[in-house]
């Protein structure tokens, strides 16, 4: 039967990838992701995992190897962080445009200049518009479960999935993790179908130059232009909302753990003040919520798990009864608001929800954000709202700003 083991987030990710019977792994070292690839190389060299491990010379090549391997029908995996993700940016677009079911872990880390090896989510958030599904994890249990779900989702909609989790806060922190049984994972995630891929028996020219307009093939059948191909990717991401929810439900039935699909919540039912957050800052908010509730403040939490596709209607529904919204996040859209705050405001436009909205950028470059600070921020926002400061610009939590 399943057993709980104490492990880091990176160990959980590596173990999950192994249990998904990945066939090709390509990786390049970068902190704080490196220990995933070290663990997988151990699995491969010891014979525990039968996979081709390509020790590439850069992240650009790491994702390229996954793209090419996936094109011939192999289940491919890579992981990266920060500048590694940015260096492969061209291939991040290319993988989604190619509609390949690659899974990549992004162990979230701040982006230079100046250098930081520590955690925030600027790296993956800046890849928002590449056409990948992005799922954010709140703890190590969710990491192992999400990597397994990610392959099921990616292979159902032919869109790559980025499993994002906070560097060091989760990647290097030991937590008890219930490890699923291999037979159950095998039943949940059957081998990748190998038909329809690049094959010498059926020569095709994959991803050639495409015109803006639709064009007839040699049989006179009209084929997609560039824009139709883009629409199909967009449409696949929209469809992925239902698939993420469905896969989460199926996973919960088989493995007994429900991570909420697109969103999760904590004490949110009938809560008047709703905190919205993504990743470990959301789990860090839970003790703050407990403490505030003990003081009689009716506060709850919404955790955003899927940043892309963004759960617009689900967010509206969850926030429908809110009297105030406070967002906590580890990324900033420079010159505007926090990235998640922008998305939430856009999602609420045209809805009946017109309530005070505060947002906080916190923990950039690994600056500690603890439950006490989150509690103080919420208390301060509620005070400001009472004083009539209903929608100020994004606050910088625990940061000298004058």
């Amino acid at each position, binding site marked *: 039967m399943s057993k709980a083991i104490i492990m880091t987030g990176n160990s959980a990710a590596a173990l999950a990838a192994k249990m998904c019977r990945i*066939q*090709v792994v*390509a990786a390049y070292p970068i902190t704080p992701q490196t220990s995933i690839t070290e663990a997988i190389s151990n699995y491969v060299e010891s014979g525990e995992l039968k*996979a*081709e491990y*390509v*020790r*590439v*010379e*850069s992240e*650009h*090549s790491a994702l*390229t*190897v*996954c*793209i*090419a*391997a*996936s*094109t*011939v*029908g*192999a289940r*491919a995996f890579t992981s990266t962080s920060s500048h590694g993700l940015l260096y492969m940016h*061209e*291939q991040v677009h*290319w993988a989604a445009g190619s509609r390949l079911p690659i899974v990549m872990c992004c162990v979230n880390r701040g982006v230079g200049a100046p250098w930081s090896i520590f955690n925030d989510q600027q790296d993956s958030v800046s890849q928002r518009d590449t056409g990948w599904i992005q799922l954010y994890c709140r703890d190590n249990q969710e990491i192992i479960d999400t990597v397994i779900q990610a392959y099921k989702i990616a292979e159902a909609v032919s869109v790559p999935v980025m499993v994002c989790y906070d560097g060091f806060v989760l990647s290097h922190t030991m937590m008890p993790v219930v490890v699923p049984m291999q037979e159950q994972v095998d039943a949940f995630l059957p081998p990748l179908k*190998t038909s329809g891929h*690049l*094959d*010498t028996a*059926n*020569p*095709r*020219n*994959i*991803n*050639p*130059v*495409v*015109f803006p307009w639709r*064009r*007839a*093939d*040699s049989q006179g059948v009209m*084929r997609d232009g560039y824009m139709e191909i883009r629409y199909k990717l967009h449409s696949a991401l929209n469809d992925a909302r239902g698939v993420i929810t469905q896969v989460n439900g199926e996973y919960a039935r088989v493995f007994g753990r429900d991570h909420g699909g697109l969103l999760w919540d904590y004490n949110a039912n009938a809560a008047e003040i709703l905190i919205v957050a993504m990743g470990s800052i959301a789990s860090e908010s839970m003790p703050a919520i407990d403490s505030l509730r003990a003081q009689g403040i009716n506060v709850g939490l919404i955790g955003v798990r899927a940043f892309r596709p963004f759960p617009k209607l689900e967010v509206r529904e969850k926030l429908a009864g809110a009297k105030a919204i406070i967002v906590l996040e580890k990324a900033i859209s420079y010159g505007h608001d926090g990235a998640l705050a922008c998305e939430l405001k856009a999602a609420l436009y045209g809805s009946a929800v017109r309530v005070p909205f505060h947002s906080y950028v916190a923990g950039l470059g690994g600056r500690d954000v603890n439950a006490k600070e989150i509690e103080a921020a919420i208390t301060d926002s509620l005070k400001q709202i009472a004083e009539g400061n209903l929608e100020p610009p994004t606050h910088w939590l625990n940061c000298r700003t004058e």
Partner: protein
Amino acid sequence: MPEKLFKVNLQEYMLPGQRACQGCGLSLSFRYILKALREDTIYTIPASCLTVLCGLYPTTAVRVPILNCTFPSTAASASGLVAGLRALNREETTVVAIAGDGGTLDIGIQALSGAVERETDFIFVCYDNEGYMNTGTQRSSATPIGATTTTTPLLTKQQHKKDMVRIMAAQDVPYISVSSPSYPLDLYDKFVKAKRIGGSRYMQIAVPCPPGWGYHSKDTVRMGKIAVEAGIVVLCEIEEGKFKFTGRSKVIAERGKRTTVNQYLEKQQRFRRMSTEQKEQFQQWVDTRWEEYREWSQR
């Protein structure tokens, strides 16, 4: 010679309707590459003249499986194909990466250097037309000294060509060759041989380019021959570090006499601004390299 012709694969993999320029040295080369490598070969191609040659969606002029990849990623794309095919027990398929000189010597060199260092089992072909011809003749590190390009329009390129063959030899690539579409049987034989060898294989082809070099499209084969006669292009193989002249270059090395570079320079518009000093430097560069190769062949 005539009987050698009969061994060339009669199957055509490049169909009418390919979109290369008139007189393209690449299209001559590619036709023979495809014939030599036959079926059960997968190609990966970055953004380049070859992308255009192969045709625009939803039609294609080539009857082989191709994976288009981004400009810097050709050799990594080949690495991924090799890994994927191995994982699926389809190791008998030959994986071939084909990039231009920009995609090989410039933006693609990191991925290529990595792939051959990992001893990836693939063929990397560099078709060297000495510039960014697909974007309209900009300078690359393969452009020779004295050539005008659209990014060296007045002063010409000031530096010599990067010697990629020696870079690959320095990485101990087990099979390296240089060929020319002006000698198609020499080219064909090298690719037939390469398909039989395992490990990394680096194959450079000196590809004349009528619009980029500024000569009439009917003169492509002649231009390739003049280059070989002058020792500007050296047909050769380097197997396990051992250098061998091949084909016409072998004849020149053994008995013949090289011509000067003058005829080659005079026949191309791109050298019209080349100074006398640059011409001397170019001749000296060709002479020095030829001597180094000759010594290498005697080692």
